[in-house]
């Protein structure tokens, strides 16, 4: 009996020692700061690029515009990158040290890229920017006259104003427009409330992700021009299907992705798709509730030990 008691006590003591040692060990290397990034390939690549720009990590140059987690060559600061569904990142911002969030999700939730953001993607509508959203058609249809009309209807001042008003700066038109304008207060809602009928018109099926409200405005432009085209918007909840549906001919156009994502999809899936017009760009911003500036965040994380 005594022996049992003694060995139990010894065991307990040993456990305690190890536990303490473990604690001490982890004190030397603090818990990494968690950074939320979108889980979908499109946004994740941008998030990784943004984190590289911020100087938190180093990325293999060979990955180009579409780096993946595996392309990260070095963590400069002690951070852990956690992929999560892009649309959940706002709600869970408190749980992360910082998160890269699309303007489309952040701005409606009351986050401002200029005030709350630590760093924002730099996007110019100039050539070479792969993160501009595009309308995509099958390559064989890239010169289709109806599709061209749709692109033209999109790239109008009406739509530019709609995008700017609707998204409060989280998303900008990716085509030429006049930034000096004034609009009535119900400008956005009157366009969104526009209802058209497919009767007597040529129907064009267009796949989007998220809300397809902008296409109601585009429809109004098309109808005002008597183009005889009806854009039948199909909303997909997931990013993986609109390209598949387009390539297989189930839809005629899609508009939900930027060039970088399209290119990676074409490469991996062998789709025969071509962008036929720019729509908008929505920069990704690194937000944090725990750090006010990028330097704060870096201090919080600390340099990654070797």
């Amino acid at each position, binding site marked *: 009996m005594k022996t049992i008691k003694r060995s139990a006590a010894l065991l307990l003591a040993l456990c305690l020692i190890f536990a303490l040692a473990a604690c001490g060990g982890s004190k030397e290397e603090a818990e990494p700061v968690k950074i939320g990034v979108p889980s979908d390939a499109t946004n994740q690549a941008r998030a990784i690029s943004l984190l590289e720009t911020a100087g938190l990590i180093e990325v293999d140059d060979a990955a180009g515009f579409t780096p993946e987690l595996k392309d990260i060559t070095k963590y400069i600061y002690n951070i852990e990158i956690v992929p999560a569904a892009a649309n959940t990142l706002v709600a869970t911002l408190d749980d992360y040290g910082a998160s890269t969030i699309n303007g*489309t*999700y952040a701005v*409606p939730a009351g986050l401002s890229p200029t005030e709350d953001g630590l760093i924002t993607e730099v996007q110019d509508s100039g050539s070479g920017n792969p993160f501009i959203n595009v309308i995509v058609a099958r390559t064989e249809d890239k010169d289709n006259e109806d599709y061209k009309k749709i692109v033209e209807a999109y790239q109008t001042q009406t739509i530019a104003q709609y995008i700017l008003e609707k998204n409060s700066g989280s998303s900008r038109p990716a085509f030429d427009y006049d930034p000096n304008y004034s609009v009535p207060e119900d400008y956005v809602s009157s366009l969104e409330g526009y209802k058209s009928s497919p009767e007597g018109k040529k129907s064009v099926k267009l796949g989007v992700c998220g*809300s397809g409200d902008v296409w109601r405005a585009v429809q109004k432009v098309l109808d005002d021009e008597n183009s005889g085209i009806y854009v039948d918007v*199909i909303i997909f*909840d997931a990013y993986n*299907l609109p390209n598949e*549906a387009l390539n297989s001919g*189930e839809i005629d156009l899609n508009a939900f992705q930027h060039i970088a994502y399209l290119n990676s999809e074409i490469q991996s899936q062998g789709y025969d798709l071509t962008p036929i017009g720019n729509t908008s760009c929505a920069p990704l911003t690194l937000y944090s509730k725990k750090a006010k500036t990028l330097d704060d965040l870096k201090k919080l994380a600390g340099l990654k030990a070797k």
Partner: protein
Amino acid sequence: MFEAIKGTFPNVVNYWDRFIDSMEATFQMFFIAGLITVLIGGCFGILLIVTKPGGIKPNKPVHTALEVVTNVFRSIPFIILLIFLIPFTRLIVGTSIGVRGAVVPLVFGAVPFFTRQVESALSDVDPGKVEAARSMGSGTLGIIFRVYLKEALPDLIRVLTITAISTIGLTTSAGAVGAGGIGSFAINYGQNMHYQDIVNLCVIILLVIVSIIQITGNTLARRTYNRELFKK
């Protein structure tokens, strides 16, 4: 009244027509897929009971094949089934997107579930009753309709209720293939655009739909079960 709704759900009012569209899509998916599921799953459930060893028409190959198919499809999560079935869906209904494209995976998701439920409801029917029916000269069809289905009616209504509720659940994932519906509305307008009132309303609507199904099912099941007490 309207002002009160507008106050509680301001964004829902703004997106009213889209909300109505999504309700319509949900009900379309629910009723079309539900009807097909009841027909196919009901037949499968009956076949499982009839062809099982010791059943009224034992048939090992048919029974084993049904068992395997139900088990395989029951173990695939719906959101994966949705993607996995795309080529097949296209083959059957010509498209893999929209309500039409969602019906096929919905059926595939709900049929195995319903089949099992029907099987378990029917296997509760006392084999003695089946034997009595055989001794009175009932054939396979007679036993199915006059004994199994009639005697198990309250249980069948109960499992129908459960399946209906789970099918409603499945329709909320169908937005992945562009079928719309309340689930898709909640994600694309509620969550993505951060309109909490839209999410709230969608939850309430789903709760109401599920409650209505549950209450209707319970009432009907009780009515049929206690028929002898109601009709003295």
